[in-house]
């Protein structure tokens, strides 16, 4: 078989089961593709030796008839996941040299299922960003190019994961989504990104950004692959006190392709001023596709949508300022060079000033401010109340019989690297306008590539589902995927 790295997870699984290829061959194909991909800057720590060992073990397991759907499937892991013995630093200088002595639950679940680890993937520092430019490794680059070969962002924060999947460097990748960091990069690269319900996937061993919003999920080439990979990543985990005590279903078996009678809500508040024609047309087209498949399209209202972004940019930085207090130059990572007579406070302040990038520093300081005496009620508590109202909007819609909500994933297609004005952080925050609502409400969401803009760049739509009903959500997403028939791939330039 040729171009094994271009297979989907489902195709590779079937080929492995039929003896048409081996995990070793699949892995070598991916390692070769990774080697030739340095211009994308997607993989930042290679683990080729580990991959070859794991592939051999997977082949033995397949031979013994003990394979799962993920056995022998080569995957990439976002840098934010702790992997034992492999540098894991969430793209931050402050974790230079950190090599975990333990394994995150998600990656352990994947290895238990027989998946093969190819390496660590680029991201925005501590998963804070929408362009993957805030990384100690430098930006990841989108395999899709702009006009005249302009280099584009793959989105963020899971930009390396999205670029790697779109460029066929791996069959699937892990991402994390705190405000849109799985879905926005998926939309920018023509791939599928699923953010599960809060509590479906363990956060243990995932370097924390905002603990009440963080959730890991799969980034894949197809919806079916997302179903397969989520099944391997999800678990009930005593190590994560917010892990839900619900059995993990066989998500793939729930992909029936039948969505007749399902009610899909179109939230009018998402039709924001200045929405590009391409995006508005895509949204209408997506609704038509679901209607043609037998779903009922219903106009709905989620009245507090407008306030999701400001609420998010209070709550997430507040939690980040607390979570990132642990990086103090004492227990792990780097410590700044100290001057004569510097005490412990100077050590903290210098270490954090040189270890954290500008966006991380900004969010820590905003978080510190909104949690400080005198402002706690005015900002933090008010934002948490608004968060309750945003969740109530969704609860009401679902109580009215809505099965899922359809909306654009992003307000634009991928844009050039360097296009965001670094001195106006709010401009970048607006990237998250359609994605943060469901993080605040803890709901699952999936971005599916549905079309291309005038330049030929991929555009995505997202479906937002009911809590813990990822199977039904993925089924709807598969119907959308099949109706859209998005098969475009980026021309190889790297």
């Amino acid at each position, binding site marked *: 078989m040729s171009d094994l790295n271009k297979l989907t997870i489902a195709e590779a699984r079937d080929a492995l089961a039929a003896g048409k290829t081996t995990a070793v061959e699949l892995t070598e194909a991916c390692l070769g593709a990774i080697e030739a991909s340095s211009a994308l800057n997607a993989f930042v720590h290679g683990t080729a030796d580990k991959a070859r060992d794991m592939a051999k073990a997977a082949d033995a397991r397949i031979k013994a008839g003990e394979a799962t759907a993920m056995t022998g499937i080569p995957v990439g892991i976002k840098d934010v996941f702790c992997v034992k013995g492999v540098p894991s630093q969430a793209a931050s200088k402050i974790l230079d040299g950190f090599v975990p002595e333990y394994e995150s639950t998600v990656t352990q679940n994947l290895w238990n299922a027989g998946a093969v680890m190819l390496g660590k993937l680029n991201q925005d520092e501590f998963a804070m960003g929408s362009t993957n430019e805030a990384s100690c490794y430098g930006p990841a680059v989108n395999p899709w190019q702009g006009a005249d070969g302009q280099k584009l962002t793959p989105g963020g924060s899971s930009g390396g994961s999205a670029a790697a999947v779109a460029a066929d460097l791996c069959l699937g990748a892990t991402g994390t989504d705190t405000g849109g960091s799985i879905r926005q990069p998926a939309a920018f690269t023509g791939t599928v990104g699923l953010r599960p319900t809060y509590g479906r996937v363990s956060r243990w061993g995932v370097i924390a950004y905002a603990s009440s919003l963080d959730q890991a999920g799969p980034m894949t080439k197809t919806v079916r692959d997302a179903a397969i990979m989520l099944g391997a990543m999800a678990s009930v985990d005593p190590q994560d006190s917010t892990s839900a005590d619900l059995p993990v279903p066989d998500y793939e078996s729930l992909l029936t392709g039948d969505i007749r009678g399902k009610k899909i809500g179109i939230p009018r508040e998402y039709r924001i001023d200045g929405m590009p024609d391409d995006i508005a047309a895509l949204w209408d087209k997506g609704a038509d596709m679901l209607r043609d498949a037998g779903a009922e399209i219903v106009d709905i209202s989620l009245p507090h949508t407008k306030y999701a972004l400001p609420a998010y940019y209070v709550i997430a930085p507040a939690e980040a300022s607390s979570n990132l207090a642990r990086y103090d130059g*004492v227990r792990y990572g780097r410590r700044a060079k100290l001057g004569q007579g510097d005490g412990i406070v100077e*050590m903290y302040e210098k270490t954090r000033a040189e270890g954290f990038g500008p966006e991380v520093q900004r969010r820590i300081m905003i978080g510190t401010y909104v949690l400080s005496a005198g402002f706690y009620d005015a900002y933090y508590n008010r934002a*948490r109340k608004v968060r309750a109202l945003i969740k109530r909007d969704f609860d009401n819609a679902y109580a009215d019989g809505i099965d899922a909500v359809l909306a654009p994933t992003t307000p634009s297609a991928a844009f050039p690297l360097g296009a965001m004005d670094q001195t106006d952080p709010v401009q970048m925050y607006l990237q998250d306008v359609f994605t943060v609502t469901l993080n605040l409400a803890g709901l699952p969401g999936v971005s599916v590539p549905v079309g291309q803009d005038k330049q030929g760049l991929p555009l995505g739509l997202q479906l937002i589902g009911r809590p813990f009903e990822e199977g039904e959500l993925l089924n709807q997403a598969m119907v959308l995927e099949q109706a859209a028939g998005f098969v475009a791939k980026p021309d190889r330039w790297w």
Partner: protein
Amino acid sequence: MSITEDEARKVAHLARIAVKDEALPALARELSGILNFMEQLNEVDVEGVEPMTGVTPMRLKRREDVVTSGGFADKIMSNAPDAREGFFAVPKVVE
């Protein structure tokens, strides 16, 4: 809401991040911009709404109050920038 340079210095110190004096005006401007963006939240009527603490309506899990892990100090120390004789080493704390 606008943040002064003094307030910016104070918040940087609370966050334990060294900021040079010449960087304070830009920092104050950025923080003010973000806080202005958050002012929109004042438009929302939140009367009688409880602040949300968690998204899933479940009771926090409990377990037996017993030791479940430990006994690997060497592993914990292995990533420390400066560790000696089983301790994390830091600059002088008390004058």
